[in-house]
């Protein structure tokens, strides 16, 4: 039987923690808490209680009030709701949005859709560190700007946006600020009572919860209004209709609770694993794309000079990692973020993103270093002298 690759792609998704799965399973069958949380009878109220407890757990991780948490089908839907919701609700006040070229597709495509509807979007470019600076955001603001939308942690290189500074600046200018925290929630401390952020997107599946559930934080003080995307019953304060999936919500709550319990220790452990791998890859000529310190703990992005990117990724098939390009057999597109760092097409294409998580061991990291070392040398040996 073929062994599974070593999984080093936690930034793409995570396995569900068994403790989370157990809580979820208790909400499924006849013997469990399966009723519709909107029903008025006892089983419905029991389901409702679990939903509200989970909502409080999600809120607690980010120091928000439970009433500020709206459950969605994931961070993609939360991004759509935040961006389109603000744009459509406040369209009589303005029609300009500021975001960046390096956002998740959910943000990029939502903004492109709004452009088709007549909104104007400013697409900020990252600086040479791959960061979107507060000064760049400020320079893009106009009198008719409704919203700034930026990710807190970049999914490719892990670089951290200074959302506190950008949030303060948005407040001064009276502009709503949305942050995609899919890669950062549960990995960095987030305090929404202190951070001047109006809207924040979360995904359960990045933090050992199930896929298919996320949330949008919607600030109440001062209140942020949104035009809902989905109608049909008025659930989640009218912002997101649809029968609440108790098992999914309970899963997300438990995942967020567990993440909060071990956040500082995990951050140190993952940082140590990251630096352990980096030391070995630096020794064979790798170039670091992720920032050494202003970075999410669990992401390491490295370019390998002199080899073709698709072959590099393919030859490391003992590892489950991502590449720095949206590369598959159909098309290859070097990463915008890596190009912004000054990497040429070859380096941007021949990059690997390693992302570590709860179940990553030192032995796995050491084996990953061996595999990359061996395969990088193998590919270099095939190449004609320049």
């Amino acid at each position, binding site marked *: 039987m073929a062994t599974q690759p070593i999984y080093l792609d936690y930034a793409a998704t995570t396995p569900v923690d068994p403790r989370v799965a157990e809580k979820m399973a208790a909400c499924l069958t006849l013997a469990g808490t399966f009723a519709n949380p909107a029903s008025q009878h006892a089983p419905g109220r029991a389901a409702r209680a679990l939903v509200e407890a989970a909502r409080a757990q999600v809120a607690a991780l980010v120091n928000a009030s439970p009433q500020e948490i709206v459950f969605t089908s994931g961070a993609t839907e939360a991004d759509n709701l935040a961006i389109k919701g603000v744009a459509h609700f406040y369209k009589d006040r303005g029609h300009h949005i500021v975001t960046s070229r390096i956002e998740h597709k959910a943000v990029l495509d939502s903004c492109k859709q709004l452009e088709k509807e007549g909104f104007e979007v400013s697409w900020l470019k990252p600086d040479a560190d791959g960061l979107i600076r507060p000064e760049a955001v400020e320079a893009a603001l106009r009198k008719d700007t409704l919203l700034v939308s930026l990710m807190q942690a970049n999914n490719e290189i892990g670089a951290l946006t200074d959302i506190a500074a950008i949030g303060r600046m948005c407040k001064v200018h009276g502009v709503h600020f949305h942050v995609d925290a899919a890669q950062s929630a549960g990995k960095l401390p987030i305090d929404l009572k202190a951070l001047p952020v109006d809207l924040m997107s979360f995904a359960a599946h990045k933090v050992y919860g199930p896929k298919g559930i996320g949330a949008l934080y919607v600030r109440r003080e001062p209140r942020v209004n949104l035009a809902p995307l989905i109608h049909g019953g008025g659930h989640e304060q009218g912002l997101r209709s649809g029968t609440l999936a108790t098992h999914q919500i309970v899963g997300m709550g438990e995942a967020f609770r567990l993440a909060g319990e071990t956040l500082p220790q995990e951050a140190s452990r993952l940082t140590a694993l990251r630096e352990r791998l980096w030391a070995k890859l630096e020794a064979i000529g790798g170039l670091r794309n992720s920032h050494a310190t202003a970075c999410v703990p669990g992401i390491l992005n490295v370019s390998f000079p002199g080899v073709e990117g698709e072959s590099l990724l393919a030859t490391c*098939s003992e590892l489950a990692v991502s590449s720095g390009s949206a590369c598959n057999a*159909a098309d290859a597109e070097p990463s915008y973020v890596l190009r912004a760092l000054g990497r040429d097409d070859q380096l941007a294409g021949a990059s690997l993103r390693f992302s570590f998580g709860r179940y990553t061991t030192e032995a796995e990291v050491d084996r990953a270093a061996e595999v990359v070392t061996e395969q990088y040398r193998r590919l270099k040996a095939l190449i*004609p002298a320049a």
Partner: protein
Amino acid sequence: MTDIASDYSQLVLEHFRNPRNVGSFPAGTVGVLTGMAGNRRHGREVRFEIRVAVGRVAECRYQVYGDPATIALCSLLSERLRGLSVAEARTFGIVPLADELGLPAVKRAAALVLEDALGAAFKSYNSVSQLEPLRA
């Protein structure tokens, strides 16, 4: 994605993981034709060497920078040319090899780079009345 198994055939994977005949002939080897094509800045570069003896391809060597399709094509070509007469080798169709490998449409440009490399190698065959030993 690291699962190239979903993008490439088993034959490509076999030749990519275990490419045959990699390298170059030692300096001084008699009968070697060399052709280079492609540019690594554009993603593919091939140096293909063919050793001819008694009017036939005795063996091939190559060095390659490129994707798994390009590496697999080089490997397969290096096996298929062996034993062919110079006339047969000179006109060998590489596009059918791309078919045999089941390459997706977007990867078939690799065949053109190999055609150019082969063409360059046999061009040097025309211009010598006797094959010179390979220079270093």
